[in-house]
């Protein structure tokens, strides 16, 4: 759903998702961030048309919504792949060779950091720290964590992930 609607048009389903969430959170104080988190959770990302709808329904100025959304790294303005690969670039991972792991993953998938593969299967992100420092270097695919990696192992994991026919459903 998220991948088919262009950023200028929202589907009626998406709009009703937004309306329901805004109604749910509107009475709570300081609710803008959890509200955006919930919308992103259900729609997958926050295109301008969705943020405008949130503004319209909540009475919060669009500039404020975009200001908050663009401040936090969790919020995305582009659709993402079905699986998100998070390559840890924390200190422990860095001293154990995370740079080579990032390179290997991006090279294997033919994308840049932050990019999504052409088939829409993976989005590759780097993150500051996954907190599994003793297993450095670490990558996380969706909820699965893989530790003590060499660049070659990282390639293998990415190459084989979801190929056994068990690839999970769409994220959004």
């Amino acid at each position: 759903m998220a991948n088919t609607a262009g950023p200028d048009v929202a589907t009626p389903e998406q709009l009703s998702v937004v309306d329901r969430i805004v109604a749910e959170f509107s009475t709570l104080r300081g609710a803008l961030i959890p509200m955006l988190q919930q919308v992103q959770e259900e729609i997958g990302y926050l295109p301008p048309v969705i943020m405008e709808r949130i503004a319209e329904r909540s009475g919060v100025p669009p500039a404020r919504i975009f200001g908050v959304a663009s401040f936090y790294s969790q919020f995305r303005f582009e659709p993402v792949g079905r699986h998100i690969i998070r390559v840890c670039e924390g200190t422990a991972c860095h001293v154990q060779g995370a740079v080579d792991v990032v390179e290997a993953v991006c090279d294997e998938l033919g994308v840049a950091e932050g990019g999504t593969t052409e088939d829409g299967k993976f989005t590759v992100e780097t993150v500051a720290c996954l907190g599994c420092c003793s297993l450095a270097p670490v990558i996380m695919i969706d909820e699965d964590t893989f530790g003590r990696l060499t660049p070659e192992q990282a390639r293998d994991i990415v190459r084989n992930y979801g190929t056994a026919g068990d690839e999970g459903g769409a994220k959004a």
Partner: protein
Amino acid sequence: MPDQSTSSRVTVGLSSCGVAAGAAQVYEAFRREFDERGLSTPLRRTGCIGMCYREPLVDVDTEGLGRVTYGGVTEEQVARIVQEHIVGGKPVEEFAVRMEGKRLPDEAYYDRQVRLVLRNAGLIDPESIDEYIEAGGYEGLTKALTEMTPEEIVDTMKASGLRGRGGAGFPSGVKWDLARQQPGDVKYVIVNADEGDPGAFMDRSVLEGDPHSVLEGLTIAAYAIGAAEGYIYARAEYPLAVRRLKMAIADSEERGFLGMDILGSGFSFRVKVKEGAGAFVCGEETALIASVEGKRGMPRLRPPFPAAKGLWAKPTNINNVETYANVPWIITNGAAAYAAYGTETSKGTKVFALTGKIVRGGLVEVPMGISLRDVIFEVGGGIPDGRKFKAVQLGGPSGGCVPEEHIDIKIDYESVTKTGAIMGSGGMVVMDDRTCMVDIARFFLQFTQDESCGKCTFCRVGTKRMLEILDRITSGEGREGDIERLEELGQQIVSSSLCGLGQSAPNPVLTTIRYFRDEYEAHIHEKRCPALTCKPLLTYEIDPDKCIGCTLCVRACPVGAVSGERKGPHVIDTELCTKCDACRKACKFEAVIVS
């Protein structure tokens, strides 16, 4: 032979690191094995057992045998552990890392540790409030609400000497007192669980392993300052911690440790979890408050401090996870028992996430006053692969690198600060002679540059300019005067930034220049990286005397840069070479020379 199957119980460490190492599969393997054999041995889960370097970890407690910890457990080993230990009553010593009654080499990891904050971590099921209560949980809260006045609690906290474990080290009792004395009926308490330092996982482990201890500490603080509402601001990257916290809140409400009229004392208190959205600066207390209010998480000028004007302009007390987790222990055991640990100015214990180039890395808790050397070499077992210790990084992006000449300092707030580093929240990353200090400085600055909120010019633009200089140096284009420029800019950023992020952002650069200036100079003047880390400064060559022409390197090279006749010496085309290191790793004769 007696059947031990019901006199044993098996506990699997299922924290995030354990799961990443395969603990969930091990847990399932035990369940399958028990089912197939028809055994009714209890199978439990717990949080971080602490020996992260040995994950996955499994404890088997057996009547008469005590506790045996197995490390690096694989699914294949499970059948033998069940057969020999649980059924046969004889521990499988070759898989064991800790055994009651017998000293194994890994015991050295625990000799110097004092586990107050981590008192329950790795022992209880974090999802069971009953196990927490059985371990003495909520005794502190009961004592506080039924036997103590708020003033007495604040006095106890002051007397304990506990200082804020988030990094700044402000005395917690004094902070509580400031909030308590503020006029007004509406006050708040907040847990800062926005653990953002790369290389630090203390708070995650506490929240995942013992969430009730933090809740209990928070509730005691709320009673002491007179707050009826509390927030836990947790990092969104820690989904398991968030889930366990929410479960702990629901369970303690049900048991009457939270909610209306707690334990019949007339005191009411509610807690909500707020998930962060990914901004390092929100670890700063005024930024965190802005974020809870639903705004951009930008720091503001202090004073007024949150104790006077915090969340929604009301008096607010903020402490971090570890600080709150100390509180129930202090209330139960008394201030004097806590202050018996530590030094004159820094009391109690500190939890560190010991990682990097270290033999035994993991979550450790040591008394203040222990030397850095003892933590690294006695607890951590020193540097692996026979390499040489170079520096230890304390305090993450706000901290600094402490070189060998200073590792005999005692760990307390003042001594660590004197080295140019900071105590920080507990990240302790060990580096050996293969770690380039210029690269590390660049790494941290890149991080703070990304995370600068942009409010103060010196932080926003200054860190960018510093990063450009460091990029230049590590790519072999360093210029005369670059070191001096870094120092000058660094000092200006420190003095012209509003919050802790900017004030400390240059620390990693300034401390590495202070202690490892020669490495900067080698990069700039000789275009050489002494630790062989900065790729643009490396060249790969094959030693013709050592090369036997086995062609392994040719096959390993992804870009076809190696050529040569079979059984004759090979050469690397440095124009094509991407310095990926594959040839050096493939060579069995150490013929690939990096310089």
